């Protein structure tokens, strides 16, 4: 067991203050692990020189899988041999990030044995990230993890571990079963998750409502967002309580309704449902008084991603309302159709959203056998530069 062997005057400055310190965490791991110790050393150097000391290397992984491990190498291995190899292992989190102490402790034990003892709970895609191990530890680590019920996440050109908001587990607004959809899809797409077969990565995120607590609209190639088709049920007695409690209903709710479909005369709150866009604002502000009513389902959106290469994209609507009941075959069929199209036409490192921008919605919708409807767009096109197909002409 090693002691901290580096002077870290810069990092040490990040140990005080109310927010828990990652430096302290690295030190805790370093007290037991050489790699963690060298991480401290190299990180201090990064802070001093104001540059990274990592480099990309060959692809590493576990047998039979094409993803799940990010290979990483130090560019100063002689100075910090403990991090000469320092790969991360992505492990599928549970739906909604629910754990028991027992399960977590088990993972900690395994990781202390095979890795640096450092982790990310969680990575920003959603995986548990086991941060820093060597190539030859990968197979035994995987054997231990998988034998206890854990599997690896994705990396490279494969599907990534789907993730979701807490949904029906602890939220009154969940309009689809985020936890179950997420689990079901993760299980259904094991092959796509583990063996690169796509032009690029593919992320799926499920939110129970338009508040989108999992950021699906911004960060998922496929965003599933719970919604409803019925009216907003109003409990006027509860409305009164909000008013009595000091809420300025006209300013905070009615006045902020984007469609101006609400009214409140100091007495009765009314919603003109056909003009409600289901944005969720009023419901979240008056949760005891307002309630969406069924049918429940989800809006299916595609294409969001980070800015490379053509600028960031948000997901956009392709199915305004899809009922979602196990085994979710309607959803899986749709996913399969879009994957087939993407596989056929996508260039290397081209996300599905970029492909849609490049080849147009028409081709995408036809491949998915979806009919165009106005809910797919904010507004129709501006110019008349569309193409006609032979069978549409005289």
């Amino acid at each position: 067991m090693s002691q901290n062997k580096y002077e870290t005057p810069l990092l040490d400055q990040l140990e005080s203050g109310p927010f828990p310190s990652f430096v302290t965490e690295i030190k805790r791991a370093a007290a037991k692990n050489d790699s963690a110790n060298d991480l401290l050393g190299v990180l201090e150097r990064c802070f001093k020189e104001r540059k990274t000391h990592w480099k990309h290397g060959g692809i590493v992984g576990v047998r039979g899988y094409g993803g799940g491990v990010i290979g990483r190498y130090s560019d100063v291995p002689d100075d910090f041999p403990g991090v000469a190899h320092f790969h991360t292992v992505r492990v599928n989190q549970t739906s909604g990030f629910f754990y028991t102490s027992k399960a977590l402790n088990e993972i900690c034990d395994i990781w202390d044995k095979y890795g640096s003892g450092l982790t990310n709970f969680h990575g920003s895609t959603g995986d548990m990230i086991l941060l820093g191990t060597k190539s030859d530890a990968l197979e035994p680590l995987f054997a231990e993890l998988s034998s206890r019920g854990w599997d690896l996440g994705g990396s490279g050109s494969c599907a990534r571990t789907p993730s979701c908001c807490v949904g029906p587990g602890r939220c009154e607004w969940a309009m689809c079963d985020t936890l179950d959809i997420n689990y079901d899809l993760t299980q259904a797409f094991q092959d796509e998750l583990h063996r690169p077969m796509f032009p690029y990565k593919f992320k799926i995120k499920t939110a129970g409502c338009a508040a989108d607590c999992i950021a699906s609209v911004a960060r998922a190639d496929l965003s599933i967002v719970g919604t409803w088709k019925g009216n907003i049920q109003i409990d006027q007695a509860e409305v009164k309580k909000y008013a009595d409690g000091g809420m300025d209903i006209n300013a905070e709710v009615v006045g902020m309704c984007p469609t101006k479909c609400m009214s409140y005369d100091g007495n009765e709150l009314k919603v003109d449902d056909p003009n409600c866009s289901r944005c969720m604002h009023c419901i979240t502000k008056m949760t005891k008084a307002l309630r969406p009513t069924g049918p429940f389902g989800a809006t299916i959106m595609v294409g969001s991603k980070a800015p490379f290469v053509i600028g960031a994209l948000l997901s956009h609507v392709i199915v305004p309302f899809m009922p979602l009941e196990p085994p979710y075959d309607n959803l899986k069929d749709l996913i399969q159709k879009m994957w087939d199209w993407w596989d056929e036409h996508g260039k290397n490192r081209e996300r599905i959203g970029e492909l849609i921008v490049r080849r147009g919605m028409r081709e995408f919708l036809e491949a998915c056998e979806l009919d165009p409807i106005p809910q797919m767009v904010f507004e129709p096109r501006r110019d008349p530069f569309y193409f006609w197909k032979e069978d549409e002409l005289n």
Partner: protein
Amino acid sequence: MAEELPQRQTDIGPPNYKDFLPPVIKNNYGKWKYHEKLSGGSMVHVGESGDELYTVRVASPRLVSTDFIRDLTAIADKYCDGYLRFTTRHNVEFLVSDKSKVDPLLAELKEKKYMIGGIGDGISNIVHTQGWVHCHSAATDASGLVKVLMDEFADYFTGAKELPARVRLAVACCTNMCGAVHCSDIAVVGIHRKPPRIDQDGVKKACEVPSTIASCPTGAISPDPKNKSVKIKDEKCMYCGNCYSVCPALPISDPDNDGVAIVAGGKIGSLRSDPKFSKLVVPFLPNNTPKWPEVVSTFRNILTAYEAGAVKHERLGEWIERIGWEKFFELTNIPFTHQHIDDFTIARETYRTSAAFKW
């Protein structure tokens, strides 16, 4: 590592979440009626059955040791029958079924100096990335920035101070933006500002020329057959570092020119207004390690203006759009430069094609 290993399994996926749900959740699954915030770090969800689930939330730096996790599980065992979860912003949630355990839990957490909070209108944890801890692309560090920002804004996390609405922060250490920078209320992103340098010998030895050329999104790289190396058209390079990922002999890091940009005004939910991209606010600030004082003061500056100007429930981006970006720059005293004007794929949509604006 020569000891006997258990039989590996493949394609089993994660454990079933149902095995990790506390009984109160199983019993009220999908049947929650409402919730109430109790303090900056605690809330209760009430089921249609009347059952209550208490949640107590604490901050995590996300980059944590196994010991940190073990500390959490010990607490969960004590107060929550071992049930806990993490949030989508990497906070820790203790799921308490027994109301009487809430206060003792809070007391213990306080005593152990956990940072309790993150619930309601304020600043929750910062979505972030690897930085110098692990990524070869990083133009800045992520964990360090998160630490100094969260220290600075601790009061908005704990609930000691409130904001007009949630303010979601993010940090990404390069323009790949593994953090949710592109749609955050305020965010930092690491940027390089110079094209990669070419180590001719290194390229010859370590790199595959065709895949290096193919890695460049702007087509700035071309072969240099004479030197068995590559050439880079500087004026086409957008400093993304993709080529360095493929060919380590094209280092792009440059301490004096690497740094961060600050963006603001994004949001994700569809409440009130459509999801929005963040927009560039400050094109460059240096990596003044370990505390990035310029970054912290810029965040503070933006936040102060927002707090003073926004109405209740109005997100930062909604506030800016209401007053106009020209007012935002005026109120924050941030200089407006050529870098702010888009020249990328949708530039024309950002030009002001209207004769109406404020002074």
